[in-house]
């Protein structure tokens, strides 16, 4: 089991030595059972660090912010940023390295193995605890979670309340790290695409009806995009007026600006938004599941990304986010490409 004191010791060591600018980790949220992202700047801050099944967030998302901050920084602090990364999060780092979003020396990875566990699903937990006020969730023995509510402590089998992304996880151990904590035994998943396969077995009309129904719920808060470490475009297609508008853009140019989608949360626009996002994540999504967790109306967004992950695997034998030296799927070409039009 990961010893939090080991994590703290290493975090203190690198902060004390000035090896990193700051460390992105998890702290206990005030008045809540959940962890929150925290930014540790001094060795004393490290006392706040936690590691438990509520460390849901993919903190790599904040490395995107860091890059933007660094671009404005004067003078530039060249030191890396430390980051606590689970297996899935570490795969996001690999993709960003492949895409040359940052360099390996820009990050100091404190890898944490999820071992045979993972993070909890808030909705599954709520059902299991039947409305009781949850105070704490901890890793327990025998693949159980120890859940403390106002009524006392209960043990729940991890498989019952683990997030779906953890049940499908193919990288419980971080694939890139400077300091790795926890058991390094890799877990295998018999059928990582089970949910997608089930969806594929339905008829086109059934699938169409399913997604239409799901996208209807979307309120276009863009939490799915905002939580995603891969959604790092300077200008997102949904932020309508930022496109190429500068002080020099004429009124006529602005009037002729292409509006890709309307703000209205109607079927056509919702579908357009979600499919654009899904396509942009093909061969890039590492299934951290943060889009789905962030969604306030519970749209099964992971399934879209999982489908494209499956396509990448089946068509190109490509596993996303395992090898930083491999070219990114969409920026390389092989003679054996199944499409012949390209030759």
């Amino acid at each position, binding site marked *: 089991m990961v010893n939090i004191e080991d994590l703290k010791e290493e975090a203190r060591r690198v902060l004390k030595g000035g090896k990193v600018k700051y460390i992105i980790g998890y702290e206990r949220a005030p008045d809540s059972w959940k962890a929150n992202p925290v930014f540790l700047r001094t060795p004393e801050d490290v006392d706040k660090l936690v590691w438990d099944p509520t460390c849901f967030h993919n903190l790599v998302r904040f490395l995107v912010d860091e890059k933007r901050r660094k671009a404005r920084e004067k003078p530039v602090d060249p030191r890396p940023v430390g980051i606590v990364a689970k297996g899935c999060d570490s795969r996001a780092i690999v993709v960003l390295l492949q895409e040359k979003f940052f360099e390996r020396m820009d990050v100091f990875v404190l890898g944490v193995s999820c071992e045979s566990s993972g993070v909890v699903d808030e909705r599954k937990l709520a059902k299991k605890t039947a409305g009781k006020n949850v105070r704490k969730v901890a890793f327990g023995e025998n693949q159980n979670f120890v859940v403390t509510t106002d009524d006392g402590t209960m043990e729940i089998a991890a498989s019952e309340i683990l997030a779906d992304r953890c049940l499908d996880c193919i990288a419980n151990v971080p694939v890139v790290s400077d300091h790795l904590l926890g058991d390094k035994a890799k877990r295998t998943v018999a059928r990582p695409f089970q949910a997608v396969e089930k969806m594929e077995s339905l008829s086109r009309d059934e699938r169409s009806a399913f997604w239409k129904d799901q996208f209807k*719920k979307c309120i276009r808060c863009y939490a799915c995009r905002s939580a995603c470490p891969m959604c790092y475009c300077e200008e997102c297609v949904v932020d309508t007026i930022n496109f190429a508008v500068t002080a020099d853009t004429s009124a006529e140019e602005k009037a002729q600006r292409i509006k890709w989608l309307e703000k209205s949360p109607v079927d056509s626009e919702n579908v357009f938004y979600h499919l654009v996002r899904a396509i942009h994540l093909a061969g890039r999504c590492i299934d951290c599941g943060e889009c789905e967790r962030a969604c306030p109306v519970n749209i099964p967004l992971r399934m879209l990304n999982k489908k494209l992950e499956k396509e990448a695997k089946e068509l190109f034998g490509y596993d996303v986010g395992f090898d930083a030296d491999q070219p990114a799927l969409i920026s390389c070409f092989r003679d054996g490409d199944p499409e012949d039009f390209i030759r």
Partner: protein
Amino acid sequence: MDKILAKKDYPQWLAKLSSYRIYAPRKKDDVWNYEIITAADGDRLEDVMTAVPAKGIVFPQREFFFEFAETNDNGTRISELLPEDNPVVVFGVRPCEGKAVTLTDLVFGGEFEDPYYWKRRNATTLVGLGCAQPPSPNCFCLSVGGSPHSKEGLDLLLTDLGEAYFAEALTKKGEKLILAGQNLFTEPKPGDRTKVEKIQAESRKKIRRELSRIDNVPAKLKGMFDSSLWDDESMSCIRCGICTYLCPTCHCFDMNDEVETASPLSGKRVRTWDTCQFPDFTMHSSGHNPRPDKASRLRQRINHKFQYFVEIWQKYQCTGCGRCISLCPVGIDIIKVVEKVRDHGA
């Protein structure tokens, strides 16, 4: 008008309201939301906090202002598209949401009345369900001038007595609803009123979260525009629209022309929700953005709720429903942020 309705008669009451479009909280894919229901769906009234607040019924995320079309003689035809004023009733409204509607009333009323808002608002009857238990662990209505049984903004308040509801009609619209189901309601027995008061007193004690001593916050915020607190508190913000879109009091909107045919030109002018948390919200056509980063956007959210609104209307623009806390993907907690403002420099 105080009445008693046996819970088993609730579906029959709904059946008597056939002239209304009825909304009530329904669960779909593990998420509660107000949905249009028929009397047959209304087997019981659910005691929950929805994801999207009831504001979406009087102030929908998308609505039309007018439609425009080029005419054959090179002219333009514009026709106003006012919403229908068919009667609507919303069941299970939380008292914090009723209070929130009184705040949007201020914004869309007064000197410049918004006919689109008021057409819906006037046609809508809000039936509150007092909170015997806080429906969210992050409820803090008591701290911002509300209560789990606040009557503000509601037309009728139901209090759960176990086997029956104690129904208090608070407006003519509320009375009309009771009259529609007249023979289902009985007179309260002596002691029922005391029961209600006891339940209400008990429920106040069950609220977990508190935002205390904030009287100085509006004045304090005035001097904190350039504080580094906004950078610190927004570090983990991911810039989504959850906190504002799902806030029962947030009311900012955008207007766009949605073109349906290019030649001849035709389409609609549409109003949609908008939020100060999006980068294009304050984007000027010059390319300058006065709120270029998440720190300035968090500051705007807090300032609007705890300074600007207070200056204009002498009320906080927050009714303590806790949605922005519970649903924030990174756990930004408005209570903690406002407490930090309160204690800043102390």
